[in-house]
Every structure is written in C-alpha cells, then in structure tokens.
C-alpha cells in the first residue's frame, strides 16, 4: 500500500473516534428542596468526558409566568436538556437565568436560553468578556463533542445588590467576591434557601483558579451571618442547616493557606507541596488531592516570591 497523506490522516483519525465513542446524554434529575425550588446536583468530580462537564449544582425556581434558573450548566447540549426539564417541572418556559460567577461549568449553557433574560453582575460580565474565550478553549479540549455548538454568553442584563421581584418570586441578590473576583449569592425569600454558587463547597474540595483567599474568608463570615435556612453549595450536597457547608469551606481554605505557607517555609517544591498529608477531617471531601494540587499551581510561585528573601543583594 502506498502511504499517502490522506490514508495516514485517515488511520490516525480512526483511533480517537473508536476510543471516544460514547453517548452524550446528560441525565438531569431535579430534587425539590422547598416549595417551587428544585436543585440539580452536579457530579462531585473534575470536569471530564465521563460527566460532560456537568459538575456544578444549579437551582430551578418556579415563578408566576416563568421559570428561573440560578446557573445553567456547562454546554449548549446541557442547556437544551435543562430547558425541557425546567419547563416540565414548572409548566412554564425559562424566563430568567442568573449566573453566579464566570466559571464555565456554571454558565456556558446560557446560549440555550435565547428567549430568557440572562443576567449577571457588571463584574461578572466584565470577567466573562475577558476570560470566556480562554475557558471555551479549555472546555472544548477537555470535553470534545459534549461542547459542540456551545458559545459563551456574556449576560445582557445586569444584577445589582438588593431584593427584587423576579417573575413574582422574591429574591435577594448579594454580589460578593472570594472564589472569583465576582460571585453572586441569591437567596429565595419564600423558602429561605441560599444559593451560594462556588463561594461554598460541601463534601467536595473547593477550587481556586481565580480565588483570593483572604477575601473569600471574609465573605464566608458574611454568608454565615446572612439570614437563610438551607444552602445550595456550588458543588456537593444541599446543606439543610445552612451553616455546615460554610464552616467546612472556611476550614479547608484556612488549612490550604497554612499548608502552602508551611510547605514554602520547609523548602518543599511544588510537587511535594501537592503531596502533603491532607488532615483526616477532610476525608469526606471529594477531589481533595486533585484540588490541592491545582491550588499549589495557583498559589505556590507567588507565595515563594513573597516568602523567599532576596539572595542577590
């Protein structure tokens, strides 16, 4: 056989297709946690082909003439399934989508809701304008066909702080920061449920690619003091008491920071800093080692620059 460029390319293409053949079906199973409020749980895992990037939690709320979504998932394909699920649950079309922050696992499905008002804080809109293309590259690389047709949407509507009636439903919007430069917390007044986005993780280790740990710590204190009953974290199970998940997130952040500083002080390199023992009290946190190693990548070079003395003066 003569090896032409075409047969060579054909042979190379055949392998990935065979290996990656899988059904691209998102299974969305809402659970009602209050009157007219359902949560959809993401997989408590990294973004990977096995889960299609559906790793974040989101909330569906029934309004008078429309359904409301707080976050909407990772891809156009996911958004289309979610749209049908929300309509079936509430009997109404999705009229409002609020994005808690810039990360693609929470908001890249927004393109599926062209007839709804997609809203975020002014800061989130700015963040998305700056970062969405880069995140899209990453999501397509990790997820391939799951992402087909997905284009990041910068929210057209702006959310500001305060209480507002949305489709007849009273919601309290609290723009904050810490997990990212702009995090939005939404509290549903009727049920007392706080939808915390990625400011709160629960039994799943917090991720820190855009985090400011000092700000995050302060924000968690504010959240704990804000009036609410149950709490939906960005990742991990619903917290009916509303305080345990906040305390756990704070505990991890405190430990993470002291662990990283301790590793720098002990002269460990980044690999070793990602391999330190994780305290037993975090045994129940999924993806703990994975997130620790990511956090080492996010913070370690800066911490070394801060903590190492100059040697050339």
């Amino acid at each position, binding site marked *: 056989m003569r090896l032409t460029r075409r047969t060579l390319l054909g042979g190379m293409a055949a392998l990935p297709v065979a290996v990656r053949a899988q059904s691209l079906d998102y299974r969305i199973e809402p659970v009602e946690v209050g009157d007219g409020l359902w949560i959809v749980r993401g997989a408590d895992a*990294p973004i990977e082909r096995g889960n299609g990037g559906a790793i974040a939690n989101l909330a569906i709320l029934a309004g008078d003439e429309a359904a409301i979504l707080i976050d909407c998932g990772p891809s156009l394909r996911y958004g289309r399934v979610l749209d049908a699920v929300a309509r079936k649950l509430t009997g109404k079309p999705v009229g409002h989508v609020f994005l808690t922050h810039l990360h693609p696992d929470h908001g890249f499905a927004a393109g599926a809701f062209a007839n709804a008002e997609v809203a975020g804080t002014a800061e989130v809109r700015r963040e998305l304008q700056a970062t969405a293309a880069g995140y899209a*590259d*990453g999501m397509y*690389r990790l997820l391939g066909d799951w992402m087909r047709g997905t284009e990041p949407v910068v929210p057209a509507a702006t959310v500001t702080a305060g209480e507002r009636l949305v489709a007849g439903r009273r919601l309290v919007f609290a723009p904050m920061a810490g997990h990212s430069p702009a995090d939005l917390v939404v509290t549903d007044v009727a049920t007392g449920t706080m939808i915390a986005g990625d400011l709160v993780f629960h039994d799943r280790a917090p991720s820190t*690619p855009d985090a400011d740990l000092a700000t995050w710590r302060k924000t968690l204190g504010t959240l704990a003091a804000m009036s609410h009953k149950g709490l939906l974290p960005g990742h991990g199970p619903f917290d009916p008491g509303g305080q345990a998940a906040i305390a756990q997130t704070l505990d991890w952040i405190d430990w993470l920071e002291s662990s990283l500083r*301790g590793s*720098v*002080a*002990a*002269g*460990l*390199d*980044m*690999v*070793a800093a*990602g*391999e330190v023992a994780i305290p037993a009290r975090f045994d129940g946190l999924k993806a703990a*080692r*994975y997130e620790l*190693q*990511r956090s*080492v*990548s*996010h913070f370690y*070079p800066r911490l*070394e*620059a801060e*903590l*190492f*003395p*100059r*040697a*050339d003066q």
Partner: protein
Amino acid sequence: MLAIFMFAPVAMAAALPADPLGSPMWADHARVLFADAPVEFDRRVVVDMPMLAENQRVFPVAIDASALPDVKRIVLLADLNPIPVAIDYAPTGAAPVVSVRIKLDQRTPVRAAVLTGDGRWHINGAWIDAAGGGCSAPPVSRVKGDWAEHLGEVRARAVLVGAEARLRVAIRHPMDTGLVGNTPLYHVEELSVWRGETRLGSMKLWASVAEDPAIGLILPAAAGDTLTIRGRDTNGREIEGRVAVQAAP
C-alpha cells in the same frame, strides 16, 4: 532517498529497549542524547509530578535518583516539546535529586534520563496531558512588560534537614523560547551551586524551563553555611546569589 531516512531509525530502534511509553520521538531523542551508550528503563529513577497539568506554562517535576549509585547526570526531557530537553544536571557533590518547573507544549511523555558512572543511562517517566501552547505563548512578564525591571533577581531559601540542606532558588527571567513572534531565544543557560570553594552541582538549562526558573536541590551542609548560586544567561548576563543555611522551621 526516502528509504534511507526510513531505515535509519528502525536500525537504531533495534539496539534500544522498546519505549514503555510508546513515544513517537523516543528513537530520535535516544540517538541524540545517548548515542551508543547502554540504555535501560529503570524504576529506581523516580519522576514525581502532579496528577494534572493545571498550568501548561508552569508544570512542576521532581526527580529523585538516589536509589542509583554514582549518578553523573540527570537530564529532564519532554519528548514532544519543541525544546525537548529542559535541564541537564551534574550533582558533583549534591544529592542526585532535583526539582524544576517546565513548560508543556502539548500532551507529552516527561522523563528523566540518569547517567551513572558505569556509562549506563537509566530512564523513567510518564505521559502528561496538557493544553497546548506552553512553549509558544508569551511569558507573563513580557505581557505585563515588567520583565526587565526584575531580570536576574535571585530569591533563595536553604533549610537544614539532618545533614543536608533543601535549597530552593528562584530567578527572575523571561526564559524566552524564540517561538513567540519577534522575541528571540533568551534564557538562563547555566547555574552552579557552591559551598565555599566546593562546587556541589552544575546545571545546563534550556528555554523549556518555565519562566522565572525555580530549582530545588539537596546539598550536604551545616547550619550557618553559606551557599552561593552562580549562573549566566544566553546574553552573558551573570547571575549570583547567596543564602545562609537555616535550621528547619
């Protein structure tokens, strides 16, 4: 003519052990790096890396060859990087251990090749998945524009653990690969570590080492010793730093 090109690597491959990682570049790299020296894949070479490349511009690798006797050189190699070799370290008095951060231009095998005094190369490593562009994206300090203000700054810490010091050295340098438009190759190319007049180790570096090189070494030392780091970049700029060995915190 084509036949000659196709036969040469095949003949070479017969003399080499089969690559457990199945790298398409194994035979080529082996021919250049090891020539006719005996080569074996050897688990005594520990190549430790995170489970994922969170940042393809700054990927940490830690190599420990202390299970091997009489280590002469430790070469860190990413097969599919456009600049495959990152460092070539000769631990003349230091422990045969080194950590460094490298760039990854795509999914690639990352490996350490360790030369022992008997002339044998011992190799181990693993595939690492990575987003593209670690070598062909501009360094952060070039984007920010402040690279020249900090060029050549050295930060260091040496912590005593038993009779050895863990030395961490961080040098501000853009480590330009020459693969980004209008910016020529420019990198730290040589570093050595001294205790008094004794050279404990020397290292050659290439531009696939991450921006602001951060190197970890283990050296024989006592509390109060001063370690000196000397180096040079490809423009002939001298690098020098001194750090006192401290007791562990």
